[in-house]
Protein backbone atom coordinates (compact mmCIF):
# COMPACT_ATOMS: atom_id res chain seq x y z
CA UNK A 1 0.00 0.00 0.00
CA UNK A 2 1.43 3.37 -0.91
CA UNK A 3 1.29 6.11 1.69
CA UNK A 4 0.80 9.83 1.15
CA UNK A 5 4.57 10.26 1.48
CA UNK A 6 5.21 7.68 -1.24
CA UNK A 7 2.73 9.31 -3.58
CA UNK A 8 4.36 12.69 -3.15
CA UNK A 9 7.60 11.42 -4.68
CA UNK A 10 5.95 9.73 -7.68
CA UNK A 11 6.99 11.49 -10.88
CA UNK A 12 4.56 13.97 -12.49
CA UNK A 13 4.86 15.76 -15.82
CA UNK A 14 8.04 17.73 -16.36
CA UNK A 15 7.84 21.43 -15.58
CA UNK A 16 10.66 22.17 -18.00
CA UNK A 17 9.22 23.66 -21.16
CA UNK A 18 11.28 23.71 -24.36
CA UNK A 19 10.00 27.17 -25.33
CA UNK A 20 11.84 28.98 -28.12
CA UNK A 21 13.92 31.94 -27.07
CA UNK A 22 11.96 34.25 -29.35
CA UNK A 23 8.56 33.32 -27.98
CA UNK A 24 9.78 33.48 -24.41
CA UNK A 25 11.28 36.88 -25.07
CA UNK A 26 8.13 38.27 -26.68
CA UNK A 27 5.84 37.14 -23.89
CA UNK A 28 8.14 38.46 -21.17
CA UNK A 29 8.44 41.82 -22.93
CA UNK A 30 4.66 41.92 -23.21
CA UNK A 31 4.30 41.42 -19.45
CA UNK A 32 6.89 44.11 -18.77
CA UNK A 33 5.02 46.49 -21.03
CA UNK A 34 1.76 45.69 -19.27
CA UNK A 35 3.35 46.22 -15.84
CA UNK A 36 4.69 49.57 -16.99
CA UNK A 37 1.21 50.74 -17.96
CA UNK A 38 -0.06 49.93 -14.46
CA UNK A 39 2.92 51.31 -12.57
CA UNK A 40 2.56 54.50 -14.62
CA UNK A 41 -1.20 54.66 -13.87
CA UNK A 42 -2.11 54.37 -17.57
CA UNK A 43 -5.28 52.40 -16.80
CA UNK A 44 -7.21 53.36 -19.91
CA UNK A 45 -4.41 51.97 -22.09
CA UNK A 46 -4.09 48.92 -19.84
CA UNK A 47 -7.71 47.83 -20.09
CA UNK A 48 -7.39 47.75 -23.88
CA UNK A 49 -5.05 44.78 -23.53
CA UNK A 50 -8.03 42.56 -22.68
CA UNK A 51 -10.31 40.77 -25.13
CA UNK A 52 -14.08 41.33 -25.25
CA UNK A 53 -14.68 37.89 -23.73
CA UNK A 54 -12.11 38.16 -20.94
CA UNK A 55 -12.64 36.59 -17.54
CA UNK A 56 -10.63 38.53 -14.96
CA UNK A 57 -10.72 36.48 -11.81
CA UNK A 58 -9.17 36.53 -8.32
CA UNK A 59 -10.54 33.53 -6.39
CA UNK A 60 -10.09 33.41 -2.62
CA UNK A 61 -8.32 30.54 -0.93
CA UNK A 62 -8.33 28.94 2.48
CA UNK A 63 -6.16 26.78 4.67
CA UNK A 64 -7.07 23.11 4.21
CA UNK A 65 -5.33 19.91 5.22
CA UNK A 66 -3.35 18.04 2.56
CA UNK A 67 -6.22 15.54 2.31
CA UNK A 68 -8.61 18.36 1.29
CA UNK A 69 -6.16 20.55 -0.59
CA UNK A 70 -8.22 20.31 -3.76
CA UNK A 71 -10.59 22.72 -2.01
CA UNK A 72 -7.94 25.27 -1.10
CA UNK A 73 -8.50 27.66 -4.01
CA UNK A 74 -12.11 28.59 -4.68
CA UNK A 75 -13.51 27.10 -7.88
CA UNK A 76 -15.58 28.81 -10.56
CA UNK A 77 -18.90 29.84 -9.09
CA UNK A 78 -17.48 29.98 -5.58
CA UNK A 79 -16.12 32.88 -3.58
CA UNK A 80 -13.82 35.41 -5.24
CA UNK A 81 -12.23 38.76 -4.62
CA UNK A 82 -12.90 39.75 -8.22
CA UNK A 83 -14.94 37.86 -10.81
CA UNK A 84 -15.23 40.32 -13.69
CA UNK A 85 -16.04 40.47 -17.35
CA UNK A 86 -14.74 43.28 -19.56
CA UNK A 87 -17.70 45.55 -18.80
CA UNK A 88 -16.96 45.34 -15.08
CA UNK A 89 -13.22 45.75 -15.57
CA UNK A 90 -13.83 48.86 -17.67
CA UNK A 91 -16.02 50.13 -14.83
CA UNK A 92 -13.13 49.74 -12.39
CA UNK A 93 -10.90 51.71 -14.74
CA UNK A 94 -13.54 54.43 -15.09
CA UNK A 95 -13.63 54.61 -11.30
CA UNK A 96 -9.89 54.72 -10.66
CA UNK A 97 -9.53 57.51 -13.21
CA UNK A 98 -12.50 59.46 -11.83
CA UNK A 99 -10.52 61.42 -9.26
CA UNK A 100 -13.10 60.56 -6.57
CA UNK A 101 -12.01 57.00 -5.72
CA UNK A 102 -10.62 57.86 -2.31
CA UNK A 103 -8.74 54.57 -1.96
CA UNK A 104 -6.62 55.64 -4.98
CA UNK A 105 -6.84 59.42 -4.65
CA UNK A 106 -4.10 60.28 -3.85
CA UNK A 107 -2.84 57.27 -5.82
CA UNK A 108 -0.76 54.39 -4.47
CA UNK A 109 2.82 53.98 -5.64
CA UNK A 110 3.39 50.54 -7.08
CA UNK A 111 6.24 48.51 -8.54
CA UNK A 112 5.49 45.22 -10.24
CA UNK A 113 7.97 42.37 -10.66
CA UNK A 114 6.69 39.71 -13.07
CA UNK A 115 8.91 36.63 -13.24
CA UNK A 116 9.10 32.84 -13.81
CA UNK A 117 7.18 33.08 -17.06
CA UNK A 118 6.17 29.61 -18.25
CA UNK A 119 4.50 29.15 -21.60
CA UNK A 120 2.39 26.29 -22.96
CA UNK A 121 1.44 26.70 -26.61
CA UNK A 122 -1.99 25.68 -27.77
CA UNK A 123 -2.33 24.40 -31.31
CA UNK A 124 -4.21 27.51 -32.46
CA UNK A 125 -1.47 29.97 -31.48
CA UNK A 126 -3.02 30.91 -28.15
CA UNK A 127 -0.74 30.63 -25.15
CA UNK A 128 -1.35 29.41 -21.62
CA UNK A 129 1.09 31.38 -19.53
CA UNK A 130 1.84 31.09 -15.86
CA UNK A 131 3.87 33.81 -14.18
CA UNK A 132 4.78 34.83 -10.67
CA UNK A 133 4.31 38.33 -9.39
CA UNK A 134 5.63 40.33 -6.52
CA UNK A 135 3.99 43.73 -6.30
CA UNK A 136 4.98 46.40 -3.84
CA UNK A 137 2.50 49.09 -2.94
CA UNK A 138 3.18 52.16 -0.87
CA UNK A 139 0.29 54.36 0.10
CA UNK A 140 0.02 57.82 1.64
CA UNK A 141 2.54 58.43 4.43
CA UNK A 142 3.83 54.99 5.40
CA UNK A 143 1.34 52.30 4.51
CA UNK A 144 2.81 49.43 2.52
CA UNK A 145 1.65 46.10 1.17
CA UNK A 146 3.23 43.21 -0.69
CA UNK A 147 1.02 41.28 -3.04
CA UNK A 148 2.63 37.98 -4.02
CA UNK A 149 1.16 35.22 -6.12
CA UNK A 150 0.75 33.52 -9.45
CA UNK A 151 -1.12 34.50 -12.60
CA UNK A 152 -2.67 32.08 -15.06
CA UNK A 153 -3.21 33.89 -18.36
CA UNK A 154 -4.56 32.97 -21.74
CA UNK A 155 -2.86 35.14 -24.35
CA UNK A 156 -4.29 35.58 -27.84
CA UNK A 157 -2.03 36.86 -30.66
CA UNK A 158 -3.08 40.33 -31.80
CA UNK A 159 -2.23 43.04 -34.34
CA UNK A 160 -1.02 46.46 -33.30
CA UNK A 161 1.31 47.92 -30.72
CA UNK A 162 1.04 44.93 -28.40
CA UNK A 163 1.52 41.38 -29.73
CA UNK A 164 -1.15 39.83 -27.49
CA UNK A 165 -4.51 40.40 -25.89
CA UNK A 166 -5.30 38.80 -22.53
CA UNK A 167 -8.31 36.53 -23.01
CA UNK A 168 -8.39 35.18 -19.48
CA UNK A 169 -6.57 35.94 -16.25
CA UNK A 170 -6.73 34.08 -12.96
CA UNK A 171 -4.78 35.59 -10.08
CA UNK A 172 -4.03 33.51 -6.99
CA UNK A 173 -2.53 35.22 -3.95
CA UNK A 174 -0.31 33.44 -1.44
CA UNK A 175 -2.56 34.62 1.37
CA UNK A 176 -5.84 33.36 2.71
CA UNK A 177 -6.46 36.41 4.88
CA UNK A 178 -5.47 39.37 2.74
CA UNK A 179 -3.11 41.47 4.83
CA UNK A 180 -4.09 44.70 3.14
CA UNK A 181 -6.98 47.08 3.81
CA UNK A 182 -7.96 47.19 0.17
CA UNK A 183 -7.18 45.76 -3.22
CA UNK A 184 -7.45 48.98 -5.14
CA UNK A 185 -4.67 48.20 -7.63
CA UNK A 186 -4.69 45.80 -10.58
CA UNK A 187 -2.84 42.53 -11.12
Amino acid at each position, binding site marked *: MSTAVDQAVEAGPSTFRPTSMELQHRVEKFFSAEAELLDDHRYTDWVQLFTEDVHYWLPTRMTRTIRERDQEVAAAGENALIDDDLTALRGRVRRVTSGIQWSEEPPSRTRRLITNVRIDERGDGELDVRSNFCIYRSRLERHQDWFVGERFDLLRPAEGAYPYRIASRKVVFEQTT*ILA*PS*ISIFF
Partner: protein
Amino acid sequence: MVDIGTLVDSKQGLINPLIYTDPALYQLELDRVFGRSWLFLAHESQLPNRGSFVQTYMGEDPVLVVRQRDASVKAFLNQCRHRGMRICRADAGTNKTFTCSYHGWAYDLEGNLINVPLEERAYHNQIDKSQWGATKVPRVQSYKGFYFGTWSDEVPEFEEYLGEMKYYFDAAVDRWDNGLEFVKGATKWVIDCNWKFAAEQFTSDMYHAPISHASAMVALFEDPAMRSLFDPSPHDQGRQFAGHGHGTGSMGIPEFGPDILAGPEYSAWQIANRDQVYNRLGTDRAHKIMIHNNIFPNFSWLGTASTMRVWHPRGPGQIEVWAWTYVPKDAPESARKGVREVTQRTFSPAGVFETDDGENWTEIQQVMRGWKARSTLFNAQMGLGFEQRDYPGMPGMSNDLYSEMGARGFYQRWQDLMKNLSWKEIAELDAQRRAAEQEVQPA
Protein backbone atom coordinates in the same frame (compact mmCIF):
# COMPACT_ATOMS: atom_id res chain seq x y z
CA MET B 1 -8.43 53.26 34.17
CA VAL B 2 -10.66 55.99 32.85
CA ASP B 3 -14.27 56.19 34.03
CA ILE B 4 -16.30 54.26 31.48
CA GLY B 5 -19.36 56.31 32.37
CA THR B 6 -17.77 59.44 30.87
CA LEU B 7 -16.43 57.93 27.65
CA VAL B 8 -19.71 57.97 25.78
CA ASP B 9 -22.61 60.35 26.25
CA SER B 10 -25.48 58.86 24.28
CA LYS B 11 -27.89 61.59 25.33
CA GLN B 12 -25.66 64.36 24.00
CA GLY B 13 -24.13 62.33 21.15
CA LEU B 14 -20.50 62.61 22.29
CA ILE B 15 -17.75 60.03 21.92
CA ASN B 16 -14.34 60.06 23.55
CA PRO B 17 -11.83 58.62 21.01
CA LEU B 18 -10.11 56.67 23.78
CA ILE B 19 -12.71 53.96 23.24
CA TYR B 20 -11.01 53.20 19.92
CA THR B 21 -7.41 53.25 21.11
CA ASP B 22 -6.99 52.30 24.74
CA PRO B 23 -5.40 48.85 25.20
CA ALA B 24 -6.86 48.34 28.69
CA LEU B 25 -10.36 49.16 27.48
CA TYR B 26 -9.85 46.71 24.64
CA GLN B 27 -8.99 43.87 27.03
CA LEU B 28 -12.09 44.72 29.00
CA GLU B 29 -14.17 44.66 25.81
CA LEU B 30 -13.10 41.12 25.01
CA ASP B 31 -14.43 40.03 28.38
CA ARG B 32 -17.45 42.27 28.97
CA VAL B 33 -18.73 42.86 25.42
CA PHE B 34 -17.58 39.85 23.38
CA GLY B 35 -17.74 37.52 26.36
CA ARG B 36 -21.37 38.45 27.15
CA SER B 37 -23.07 39.00 23.77
CA TRP B 38 -24.48 36.67 21.14
CA LEU B 39 -21.86 36.27 18.41
CA PHE B 40 -22.33 34.89 14.92
CA LEU B 41 -20.68 31.49 14.52
CA ALA B 42 -21.70 30.01 11.18
CA HIS B 43 -24.46 29.50 8.67
CA GLU B 44 -25.82 25.99 8.24
CA SER B 45 -24.67 25.86 4.62
CA GLN B 46 -21.06 26.02 5.84
CA LEU B 47 -21.65 22.75 7.68
CA PRO B 48 -23.25 20.46 5.10
CA ASN B 49 -22.32 17.04 6.56
CA ARG B 50 -21.83 15.27 9.86
CA GLY B 51 -18.32 16.13 10.91
CA SER B 52 -18.22 19.33 8.84
CA PHE B 53 -16.44 22.06 10.73
CA VAL B 54 -15.34 25.65 10.39
CA GLN B 55 -12.87 27.51 12.49
CA THR B 56 -13.98 30.96 13.57
CA TYR B 57 -13.53 33.43 16.40
CA MET B 58 -15.57 34.79 19.24
CA GLY B 59 -13.75 38.05 19.73
CA GLU B 60 -10.14 36.88 19.76
CA ASP B 61 -10.97 33.38 20.97
CA PRO B 62 -10.67 30.70 18.27
CA VAL B 63 -13.57 28.29 18.23
CA LEU B 64 -14.46 25.23 16.21
CA VAL B 65 -18.05 25.01 15.05
CA VAL B 66 -18.93 21.42 14.25
CA ARG B 67 -21.89 19.54 12.80
CA GLN B 68 -22.57 16.64 15.15
CA ARG B 69 -23.60 13.07 14.36
CA ASP B 70 -27.18 13.92 15.35
CA ALA B 71 -27.05 16.91 12.90
CA SER B 72 -27.03 19.51 15.67
CA VAL B 73 -24.25 22.09 15.78
CA LYS B 74 -21.91 22.58 18.70
CA ALA B 75 -18.90 24.79 19.29
CA PHE B 76 -15.85 24.62 21.49
CA LEU B 77 -12.72 26.60 22.11
CA ASN B 78 -10.02 25.59 19.65
CA GLN B 79 -7.46 25.21 22.39
CA CYS B 80 -6.01 21.96 23.67
CA ARG B 81 -6.46 21.49 27.40
CA HIS B 82 -3.01 19.95 27.76
CA ARG B 83 -0.78 22.87 26.95
CA GLY B 84 -2.97 25.19 24.92
CA MET B 85 -2.08 24.28 21.36
CA ARG B 86 -4.59 25.15 18.63
CA ILE B 87 -6.34 21.83 18.18
CA CYS B 88 -7.37 22.23 14.54
CA ARG B 89 -5.48 24.41 12.11
CA ALA B 90 -7.55 24.12 8.94
CA ASP B 91 -10.12 26.82 8.21
CA ALA B 92 -12.74 24.24 7.30
CA GLY B 93 -13.15 20.58 6.43
CA THR B 94 -14.69 17.32 7.54
CA ASN B 95 -13.36 15.27 10.46
CA LYS B 96 -14.25 12.34 12.68
CA THR B 97 -11.98 13.50 15.50
CA PHE B 98 -9.63 16.39 16.16
CA THR B 99 -6.12 15.41 17.16
CA CYS B 100 -3.79 17.97 18.66
CA SER B 101 -0.52 18.01 16.73
CA TYR B 102 1.61 18.85 19.79
CA HIS B 103 1.32 15.70 21.93
CA GLY B 104 -1.65 13.99 20.36
CA TRP B 105 -4.59 14.48 22.68
CA ALA B 106 -7.66 13.67 20.61
CA TYR B 107 -11.13 15.18 20.85
CA ASP B 108 -14.47 14.06 19.43
CA LEU B 109 -16.87 16.26 17.46
CA GLU B 110 -18.26 17.77 20.67
CA GLY B 111 -14.82 18.57 22.03
CA ASN B 112 -14.73 15.73 24.57
CA LEU B 113 -11.26 14.36 25.23
CA ILE B 114 -11.33 10.78 23.97
CA ASN B 115 -7.72 9.72 23.66
CA VAL B 116 -4.43 10.52 25.35
CA PRO B 117 -1.23 8.95 23.96
CA LEU B 118 0.63 6.67 26.39
CA GLU B 119 -2.28 6.86 28.80
CA GLU B 120 -1.08 3.84 30.73
CA ARG B 121 2.64 4.56 30.89
CA ALA B 122 2.68 8.35 31.10
CA TYR B 123 -0.47 8.96 33.12
CA HIS B 124 -0.58 5.63 34.95
CA ASN B 125 -4.22 5.48 33.85
CA GLN B 126 -4.99 8.20 36.35
CA ILE B 127 -6.10 11.00 34.03
CA ASP B 128 -9.84 11.63 34.15
CA LYS B 129 -10.48 12.39 30.51
CA SER B 130 -14.03 13.57 31.21
CA GLN B 131 -12.55 16.55 33.07
CA TRP B 132 -10.20 17.63 30.31
CA GLY B 133 -12.42 18.16 27.28
CA ALA B 134 -12.09 21.35 25.25
CA THR B 135 -13.96 24.33 26.68
CA LYS B 136 -17.46 24.19 25.24
CA VAL B 137 -19.44 27.21 24.11
CA PRO B 138 -22.27 26.73 26.58
CA ARG B 139 -25.05 28.27 24.51
CA VAL B 140 -25.39 27.84 20.76
CA GLN B 141 -28.63 29.04 19.23
CA SER B 142 -29.89 28.19 15.78
CA TYR B 143 -31.96 30.97 14.23
CA LYS B 144 -33.34 30.35 10.73
CA GLY B 145 -30.17 28.62 9.60
CA PHE B 146 -27.83 30.98 11.43
CA TYR B 147 -25.86 29.80 14.44
CA PHE B 148 -25.02 32.24 17.19
CA GLY B 149 -23.10 31.43 20.34
CA THR B 150 -22.36 33.06 23.66
CA TRP B 151 -20.22 32.36 26.71
CA SER B 152 -22.76 34.13 28.89
CA ASP B 153 -25.30 32.28 30.96
CA GLU B 154 -27.27 35.46 31.74
CA VAL B 155 -27.75 37.07 28.33
CA PRO B 156 -31.41 36.73 27.27
CA GLU B 157 -32.40 34.18 24.63
CA PHE B 158 -31.35 35.20 21.14
CA GLU B 159 -34.79 36.39 19.99
CA GLU B 160 -35.20 38.57 23.02
CA TYR B 161 -31.67 39.88 22.47
CA LEU B 162 -32.69 40.85 18.93
CA GLY B 163 -35.75 42.77 20.13
CA GLU B 164 -37.40 44.65 17.26
CA MET B 165 -34.32 43.94 15.14
CA LYS B 166 -35.92 40.56 14.51
CA TYR B 167 -38.33 42.26 12.09
CA TYR B 168 -35.40 43.64 10.07
CA PHE B 169 -33.17 40.55 10.34
CA ASP B 170 -36.04 38.37 9.14
CA ALA B 171 -36.38 40.61 6.10
CA ALA B 172 -33.04 39.17 4.98
CA VAL B 173 -33.00 35.67 6.41
CA ASP B 174 -36.67 34.67 6.31
CA ARG B 175 -37.78 35.90 2.91
CA TRP B 176 -37.52 32.67 0.90
CA ASP B 177 -39.41 29.47 1.67
CA ASN B 178 -36.23 27.46 1.45
CA GLY B 179 -33.92 29.99 3.05
CA LEU B 180 -30.45 31.15 2.17
CA GLU B 181 -27.05 29.68 1.69
CA PHE B 182 -23.54 31.05 1.66
CA VAL B 183 -21.48 30.86 -1.52
CA LYS B 184 -18.64 28.48 -0.70
CA GLY B 185 -15.58 30.25 0.71
CA ALA B 186 -15.02 33.35 2.80
CA THR B 187 -13.24 36.58 2.00
CA LYS B 188 -10.95 37.62 4.82
CA TRP B 189 -8.87 40.71 5.12
CA VAL B 190 -7.23 42.98 7.65
CA ILE B 191 -7.95 46.64 8.27
CA ASP B 192 -5.95 48.66 10.75
CA CYS B 193 -8.85 50.19 12.60
CA ASN B 194 -10.92 49.64 15.72
CA TRP B 195 -13.81 47.19 15.27
CA LYS B 196 -16.38 49.74 16.43
CA PHE B 197 -15.88 51.95 13.38
CA ALA B 198 -17.01 49.14 11.11
CA ALA B 199 -19.81 47.86 13.36
CA GLU B 200 -21.13 51.35 14.03
CA GLN B 201 -21.13 52.23 10.34
CA PHE B 202 -23.24 49.21 9.44
CA THR B 203 -25.55 50.01 12.35
CA SER B 204 -26.10 53.60 11.59
CA ASP B 205 -24.24 55.35 8.81
CA MET B 206 -25.96 56.05 5.51
CA TYR B 207 -24.53 59.55 5.69
CA HIS B 208 -21.10 58.54 4.40
CA ALA B 209 -22.34 56.74 1.30
CA PRO B 210 -22.82 59.61 -1.17
CA ILE B 211 -19.38 61.03 -0.34
CA SER B 212 -17.16 58.06 0.52
CA HIS B 213 -18.62 55.95 -2.25
CA ALA B 214 -19.00 58.68 -4.84
CA SER B 215 -16.92 56.68 -7.30
CA ALA B 216 -18.76 53.36 -6.90
CA MET B 217 -21.64 54.31 -9.15
CA VAL B 218 -19.13 55.50 -11.75
CA ALA B 219 -17.77 51.95 -11.81
CA LEU B 220 -21.16 50.27 -11.93
CA PHE B 221 -22.78 52.40 -14.62
CA GLU B 222 -21.29 53.84 -17.77
CA ASP B 223 -24.40 55.96 -18.24
CA PRO B 224 -24.30 58.87 -15.73
CA ALA B 225 -28.11 58.96 -15.69
CA MET B 226 -28.11 55.53 -14.02
CA ARG B 227 -25.85 56.57 -11.17
CA SER B 228 -28.63 57.97 -8.98
CA LEU B 229 -29.96 54.48 -8.21
CA PHE B 230 -29.51 54.85 -4.46
CA ASP B 231 -30.77 58.39 -4.17
CA PRO B 232 -33.78 58.53 -1.84
CA SER B 233 -36.91 57.72 -3.79
CA PRO B 234 -39.69 60.33 -3.86
CA HIS B 235 -42.27 58.02 -2.29
CA ASP B 236 -40.07 56.82 0.57
CA GLN B 237 -37.22 58.92 1.86
CA GLY B 238 -35.83 56.14 4.04
CA ARG B 239 -35.73 55.56 7.79
CA GLN B 240 -33.20 54.32 10.29
CA PHE B 241 -34.09 51.86 13.04
CA ALA B 242 -32.18 51.40 16.29
CA GLY B 243 -32.80 49.21 19.32
CA HIS B 244 -30.87 47.04 21.80
CA GLY B 245 -27.61 48.21 20.23
CA HIS B 246 -28.62 46.94 16.80
CA GLY B 247 -29.53 49.08 13.82
CA THR B 248 -30.51 49.29 10.20
CA GLY B 249 -31.28 51.85 7.52
CA SER B 250 -34.10 51.14 5.11
CA MET B 251 -35.13 52.52 1.76
CA GLY B 252 -38.43 52.07 -0.06
CA ILE B 253 -38.83 50.37 -3.42
CA PRO B 254 -41.97 50.47 -5.55
CA GLU B 255 -42.17 46.68 -6.03
CA PHE B 256 -40.22 43.62 -5.07
CA GLY B 257 -38.29 41.77 -7.74
CA PRO B 258 -36.33 43.86 -10.22
CA ASP B 259 -32.68 44.22 -9.21
CA ILE B 260 -30.69 46.31 -11.64
CA LEU B 261 -27.36 45.46 -10.03
CA ALA B 262 -27.85 41.69 -9.92
CA GLY B 263 -29.05 41.64 -13.51
CA PRO B 264 -31.97 40.42 -15.62
CA GLU B 265 -31.75 36.70 -14.80
CA TYR B 266 -31.80 37.23 -11.06
CA SER B 267 -34.55 39.82 -11.43
CA ALA B 268 -36.64 37.38 -13.45
CA TRP B 269 -36.14 34.66 -10.84
CA GLN B 270 -37.13 37.03 -8.02
CA ILE B 271 -40.23 38.16 -9.90
CA ALA B 272 -41.24 34.57 -10.64
CA ASN B 273 -40.90 33.67 -6.95
CA ARG B 274 -41.99 36.88 -5.32
CA ASP B 275 -45.17 35.48 -3.79
CA GLN B 276 -42.88 33.80 -1.27
CA VAL B 277 -41.50 37.15 -0.21
CA TYR B 278 -44.86 38.91 -0.09
CA ASN B 279 -46.35 36.05 1.91
CA ARG B 280 -43.52 35.75 4.37
CA LEU B 281 -42.70 39.41 4.89
CA GLY B 282 -45.90 41.24 4.03
CA THR B 283 -46.08 44.07 1.51
CA ASP B 284 -44.67 46.70 3.88
CA ARG B 285 -41.47 44.83 4.43
CA ALA B 286 -41.21 43.43 0.93
CA HIS B 287 -41.24 47.02 -0.33
CA LYS B 288 -38.20 48.00 1.67
CA ILE B 289 -34.51 47.30 1.30
CA MET B 290 -32.72 47.12 4.63
CA ILE B 291 -29.58 48.73 3.26
CA HIS B 292 -27.08 48.49 6.12
CA ASN B 293 -27.51 46.30 9.20
CA ASN B 294 -25.67 45.29 12.34
CA ILE B 295 -26.59 42.92 15.14
CA PHE B 296 -24.66 44.07 18.18
CA PRO B 297 -21.77 43.75 18.52
CA ASN B 298 -20.16 42.74 15.22
CA PHE B 299 -22.39 40.83 12.78
CA SER B 300 -23.34 42.90 9.74
CA TRP B 301 -25.03 42.49 6.41
CA LEU B 302 -26.31 44.52 3.54
CA GLY B 303 -29.58 44.33 1.70
CA THR B 304 -28.33 46.13 -1.40
CA ALA B 305 -25.43 43.76 -2.02
CA SER B 306 -25.64 40.22 -0.63
CA THR B 307 -22.79 40.39 1.83
CA MET B 308 -22.75 39.18 5.43
CA ARG B 309 -19.72 39.62 7.64
CA VAL B 310 -18.17 39.60 11.07
CA TRP B 311 -15.74 42.27 12.21
CA HIS B 312 -13.35 40.25 14.36
CA PRO B 313 -11.43 42.48 16.76
CA ARG B 314 -7.63 42.16 16.63
CA GLY B 315 -6.36 44.59 19.22
CA PRO B 316 -7.65 48.14 19.64
CA GLY B 317 -6.30 49.14 16.23
CA GLN B 318 -7.04 46.21 13.95
CA ILE B 319 -9.85 44.05 12.63
CA GLU B 320 -10.19 41.00 10.45
CA VAL B 321 -13.19 41.17 8.18
CA TRP B 322 -14.73 37.78 7.37
CA ALA B 323 -17.29 38.16 4.63
CA TRP B 324 -19.61 35.75 2.84
CA THR B 325 -22.01 36.13 -0.05
CA TYR B 326 -25.55 34.94 0.68
CA VAL B 327 -27.93 33.77 -2.01
CA PRO B 328 -31.42 32.20 -2.00
CA LYS B 329 -30.91 28.47 -1.70
CA ASP B 330 -33.39 27.78 -4.48
CA ALA B 331 -31.97 30.24 -7.01
CA PRO B 332 -30.35 28.35 -9.91
CA GLU B 333 -26.76 29.09 -10.88
CA SER B 334 -27.91 31.19 -13.86
CA ALA B 335 -29.70 33.55 -11.45
CA ARG B 336 -27.37 33.54 -8.47
CA LYS B 337 -24.36 34.27 -10.68
CA GLY B 338 -25.50 37.87 -10.98
CA VAL B 339 -25.87 38.35 -7.21
CA ARG B 340 -22.58 36.69 -6.46
CA GLU B 341 -20.62 38.70 -8.97
CA VAL B 342 -22.08 42.06 -8.12
CA THR B 343 -21.64 41.44 -4.39
CA GLN B 344 -17.98 40.61 -4.89
CA ARG B 345 -17.64 43.56 -7.24
CA THR B 346 -19.08 46.00 -4.71
CA PHE B 347 -18.32 44.63 -1.22
CA SER B 348 -15.01 42.83 -0.83
CA PRO B 349 -11.48 44.16 -0.29
CA ALA B 350 -11.52 44.80 -4.04
CA GLY B 351 -15.11 46.07 -4.02
CA VAL B 352 -15.88 49.35 -5.71
CA PHE B 353 -17.65 50.45 -2.52
CA GLU B 354 -15.68 48.72 0.13
CA THR B 355 -12.13 49.86 -0.68
CA ASP B 356 -13.18 53.35 0.35
CA ASP B 357 -14.45 52.29 3.78
CA GLY B 358 -11.10 50.77 4.74
CA GLU B 359 -9.39 53.96 3.63
CA ASN B 360 -11.49 56.05 6.03
CA TRP B 361 -11.08 53.78 9.03
CA THR B 362 -7.30 53.30 8.71
CA GLU B 363 -6.77 57.03 8.41
CA ILE B 364 -8.95 57.75 11.47
CA GLN B 365 -6.97 55.20 13.46
CA GLN B 366 -3.65 56.71 12.34
CA VAL B 367 -4.72 60.22 13.26
CA MET B 368 -5.64 59.08 16.78
CA ARG B 369 -1.98 58.26 17.46
CA GLY B 370 -1.78 61.93 18.35
CA TRP B 371 -2.34 62.83 21.98
CA LYS B 372 -4.43 65.85 21.05
CA ALA B 373 -6.33 63.95 18.41
CA ARG B 374 -7.14 61.28 20.95
CA SER B 375 -8.60 63.73 23.41
CA THR B 376 -10.87 65.61 21.01
CA LEU B 377 -14.50 64.53 21.30
CA PHE B 378 -16.35 63.19 18.24
CA ASN B 379 -19.80 64.36 17.21
CA ALA B 380 -22.56 61.75 16.98
CA GLN B 381 -25.48 64.19 17.29
CA MET B 382 -27.16 63.76 13.92
CA GLY B 383 -30.94 63.55 14.31
CA LEU B 384 -30.83 63.95 18.08
CA GLY B 385 -34.35 64.69 19.32
CA PHE B 386 -36.03 63.47 16.13
CA GLU B 387 -36.58 59.90 17.27
CA GLN B 388 -40.02 58.47 16.73
CA ARG B 389 -41.46 55.22 18.04
CA ASP B 390 -43.37 52.86 15.75
CA TYR B 391 -43.34 55.04 12.67
CA PRO B 392 -45.50 53.33 9.99
CA GLY B 393 -43.66 50.29 8.65
CA MET B 394 -40.77 50.73 11.09
CA PRO B 395 -41.37 48.84 14.34
CA GLY B 396 -39.35 50.18 17.25
CA MET B 397 -37.54 53.47 17.43
CA SER B 398 -36.72 55.11 14.14
CA ASN B 399 -35.38 58.34 12.76
CA ASP B 400 -34.51 59.79 9.39
CA LEU B 401 -32.30 57.57 7.24
CA TYR B 402 -29.61 60.16 7.74
CA SER B 403 -29.20 60.14 11.48
CA GLU B 404 -26.89 58.73 14.14
CA MET B 405 -29.51 57.33 16.43
CA GLY B 406 -28.18 53.87 15.63
CA ALA B 407 -24.65 54.89 16.63
CA ARG B 408 -25.90 56.38 19.89
CA GLY B 409 -27.77 53.16 20.64
CA PHE B 410 -24.75 51.06 19.72
CA TYR B 411 -22.44 53.00 22.08
CA GLN B 412 -25.09 53.01 24.79
CA ARG B 413 -25.21 49.20 24.74
CA TRP B 414 -21.42 49.05 24.59
CA GLN B 415 -21.22 51.30 27.64
CA ASP B 416 -23.85 49.31 29.56
CA LEU B 417 -21.81 46.15 29.05
CA MET B 418 -18.47 47.81 29.69
CA LYS B 419 -19.75 49.09 33.03
CA ASN B 420 -20.30 45.41 33.80
CA LEU B 421 -24.03 45.87 34.38
CA SER B 422 -25.78 42.53 34.42
CA TRP B 423 -28.19 41.78 31.58
CA LYS B 424 -30.98 42.07 34.13
CA GLU B 425 -29.84 45.56 35.09
CA ILE B 426 -29.55 46.45 31.42
CA ALA B 427 -33.14 45.32 30.81
CA GLU B 428 -34.32 47.49 33.71
CA LEU B 429 -32.38 50.46 32.37
CA ASP B 430 -33.86 49.93 28.92
CA ALA B 431 -37.34 50.00 30.43
CA GLN B 432 -36.54 53.26 32.26
CA ARG B 433 -35.12 54.76 29.09
CA ARG B 434 -38.24 53.83 27.21
CA ALA B 435 -40.46 55.40 29.87
CA ALA B 436 -38.41 58.59 29.76
CA GLU B 437 -38.53 58.68 26.00
CA GLN B 438 -42.33 58.90 26.02
CA GLU B 439 -42.24 62.00 28.20
CA VAL B 440 -40.21 63.99 25.68
CA GLN B 441 -42.07 62.61 22.67
CA PRO B 442 -44.02 65.40 20.91
CA ALA B 443 -47.78 64.89 21.18
